[in-house]
């Protein structure tokens, strides 16, 4: 009897365990953990990077930046510019379809450009040059300009938020300030709306009717060939758990694991590292021009002498493999990189900083420095800044808060003693700051500028000159003038370039180098 009972128990246990075995995922499903959960699906409505990444899955672009950052036609098959550079004619490739099976038309693209331009700062600038945007036929549309500008390709091929993604006309006609509710795109993957569970997962399936370009994939350009049937973005907010899941084979890919967990991940023989974002990111210090003493240019210049990039990079990243000292406003490795404006600065010359503070008549007003504590990559920045500022003669009141509180507070122009602020530190993806127009912190249009509200007509004039210029050589010269002007007025301070790639199981192959993680070209061996 006892034996029978034991046998039955063993049988039941075996049956249960067989049911408990980890279900094998479909062979062509890529399970990825992204840097954030996807809560919003409209890449024009928000500039959040996770929504931009979602955009690259579902939507396609007229032009796209390749691995070297050069703008190449993507949905556009033929692109012509009139000799006076005032008429730009775009003809779409044959065979482009929306996910609902309808053909992509010029009308769709015109509506999409208009919605994007209503929200995006580069788009807004571009539209100041545009005289008219008209549809010639189903596949062709024309952009007429009032005066020549280099922003046409720069804007339509903009690689990061907001990316001019193409949407069907009925979707693109949605008020730019209202989120879209129809997610039909023409990109290589289709969003499985019914499987989108914020806080759990987002699912994409391969768009079988997508017609890739014939050129090999490079960055965001070239043939976007989906080699997996399904991509799942799993929402694992805890970095350690994401690594655990990767090591256990429950997921295949982590977009951005923190530096301190990288050794743990890559010590596993089944895991590899891949630096997809070769341009990396840039730490940045942002002073508030509307708050004394940062309303004084000499005080802001003192910041340039107080700081040095290495201290910040060492404190946050640590391993020199993942950072680079880069004394330039525009990132190292990009077309407009220049040390002008920063030569002889960012070397913690405290004596010079103290002299400038004395000349400026700094009265010891405590600097309210906002310290973000919950984003690992930003946490150590403010304490380093505080230490260097104090050595330079500033008094610092460092106030700790979570990032979302900082985001809310930085929008306030109240005095720092009444809920406002003097300064904070953040990080930019390098591709977002590669020229004077993209770089949001260089906008010096006073109240219309980003938080910090720099106000400098000379800087705005230079940025307008850059927008008007079509010759790359002359653009470079203007970018250098912008950098020199930056050294004088100091809208922000670059604090070094850092890199963070993805970790993935070794069977994941073919990931492309691009400023945002893209999932076409990836295959599972």
């Amino acid at each position, binding site marked *: 009897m006892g034996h029978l009972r034991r046998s039955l128990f063993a049988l039941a246990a075996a049956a*249960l365990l067989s*049911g408990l075995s980890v279900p094998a995922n479909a062979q062509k499903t890529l399970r990825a953990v992204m840097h954030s959960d996807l809560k919003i699906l409209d890449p024009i409505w928000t500039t959040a990077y996770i929504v931009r990444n979602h955009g690259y899955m579902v939507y396609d672009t007229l032009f796209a930046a390749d691995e070297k950052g050069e703008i190449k036609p993507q949905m556009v098959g033929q692109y012509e510019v009139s000799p006076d550079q005032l008429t730009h004619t775009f003809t779409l490739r044959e065979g482009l379809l929306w996910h609902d099976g309808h053909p992509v038309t010029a009308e769709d693209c015109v509506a999409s450009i208009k919605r994007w331009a209503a929200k995006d700062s580069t788009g807004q600038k571009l539209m100041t040059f545009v005289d008219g945007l008209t549809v010639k036929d189903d596949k062709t549309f024309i952009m007429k300009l009032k005066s020549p500008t280099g922003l046409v390709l720069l804007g339509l091929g903009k690689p990061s938020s907001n990316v001019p993604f193409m949407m069907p006309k009925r979707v693109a006609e949605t008020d730019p*300030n209202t989120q879209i509710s129809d997610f039909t795109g023409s990109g290589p993957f289709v969003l499985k709306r019914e499987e989108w*569970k*914020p806080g759990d997962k987002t699912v994409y399936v391969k768009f079988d009717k997508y017609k890739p370009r014939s050129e090999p994939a490079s960055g965001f350009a070239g043939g976007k060939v989906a080699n997996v049937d399904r991509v799942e973005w799993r929402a694992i907010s*805890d970095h350690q758990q994401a690594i*655990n899941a990767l090591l256990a084979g429950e997921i295949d890919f982590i977009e951005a694991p923190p530096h301190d967990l990288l050794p743990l991940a890559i010590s596993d023989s089944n895991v590899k590292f891949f630096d997809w974002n070769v341009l990396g990111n840039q730490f940045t210090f942002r002073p508030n021009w509307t708050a004394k003493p940062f309303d004084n240019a000499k005080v802001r210049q003192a910041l340039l002498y107080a700081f040095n990039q290495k201290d910040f990079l060492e404190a946050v990243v640590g391993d020199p493999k993942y950072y680079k000292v880069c004394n330039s406003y525009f990132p190292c490795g990009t077309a407009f990189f220049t040390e002008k404006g920063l030569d002889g600065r960012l070397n913690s010359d405290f004596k010079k900083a103290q002299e400038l503070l004395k000349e400026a008549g700094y009265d010891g007003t405590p600097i309210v420095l906002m310290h973000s504590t919950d984003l690992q990559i930003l946490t150590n920045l403010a304490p380093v800044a505080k230490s260097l500022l104090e050595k330079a003669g500033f008094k610092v009141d460092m106030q700790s808060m979570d990032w979302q509180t900082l985001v809310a507070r930085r929008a306030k122009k109240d005095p720092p003693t009444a809920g406002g602020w003097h300064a904070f530190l953040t990080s930019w993806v390098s591709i977002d700051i590669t020229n004077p127009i993209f770089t*949001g912190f260089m906008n010096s249009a006073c109240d219309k500028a980003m938080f910090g509200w720099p106000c400098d007509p000379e800087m705005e004039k230079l940025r307008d000159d850059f927008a008007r210029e079509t010759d790359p050589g002359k653009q470079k010269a203007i970018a250098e003038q912008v950098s020199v002007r930056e050294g004088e007025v100091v809208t922000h301070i670059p604090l070094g370039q850092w890199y963070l790639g993805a970790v993935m199981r070794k069977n994941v192959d073919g990931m492309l180098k691009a400023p945002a993680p893209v999932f076409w070209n990836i295959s599972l061996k």
Partner: protein
Amino acid sequence: MRLAMFTYVLRRLLATIPVMLIVAMFVFLMLRLTPSDPAAIIAGDNANTEQVAEIRKRLGLDQPILTQFVIWIGKTLQGDFGESFFFKKQVAELIFDRLEPTLSLAFFTLVLAIIIAIPLGVVAAYRHGSWLDRIVMGFSVLGFSVPVFVIGYALIYVFAIELNWLPVQGYQRLAQGIGGWLQRLILPSITLSVIYVALIARITRTSVLEVMNEDYIRTARAKGQTEAKVLIRHALANAAVPIVTVIGLGVALLIGGVVVTESVYTIPGLGRLTVDAVLARDYPTIQAVILLFSLAYVLINLAVDLAYTFLDPRIRY
């Protein structure tokens, strides 16, 4: 008697209305008074001041707090919790979607805790002063002292990474198969039940110890009943009221634990929703979830009070 009970229940249910109203006001004001701005979060890092202001207007956050409160409470009374700022879904739909994982986890944890803790407490009381008693009490102290996430990570390391017996994270819906559902609940439930086991075992031990010297226990033994019968039928039955009370009160612990456990194990339940909503300052979702948790807590305590009448016939309402 039935009428008295009915009146009591009705009175208690009516009493939940002001409680819920106070909770609603408190949560609403707390969120509005904290230095945060959902519009700035939604707009993203590259947005300018005008874009943030536009979003704030669309969300109705530019209106006076009193107006916002009146609108929200009016809709809530009609069962409309509004639309999530972020998820572009009705809050009720979001909550409904997250109920199953949380209820599964809470149910599993509760069952596990009761199955383990009550026998442990009874045995500890019966062997009062022995090494067994000391081990149980030592475990209780440990269970109270070690944070839930530490227990979680330790279990994951041993059972998921080293032994590879169970998955590291995730949840599988019951409809997708009971095997996967069970498999993904084992580690989170053990993690969450540790503190609960510690609490219930301690109270069980104390309560059983108190009744062990009562006359009716001596009488039961004198009548020749087995020790097991004495313990279960006489000692435990008479010690049940404080044990049930602590199980009810422990629901607050469970709610707090669910938030942490779901985050550690990546379970898409109400706890995770709460964390996500708080981090994103998703006011409608936070308000609804906290109201729901408060209501659950009030109703569970009402159920506990009613259970007293079944456990102890002397108690009448």
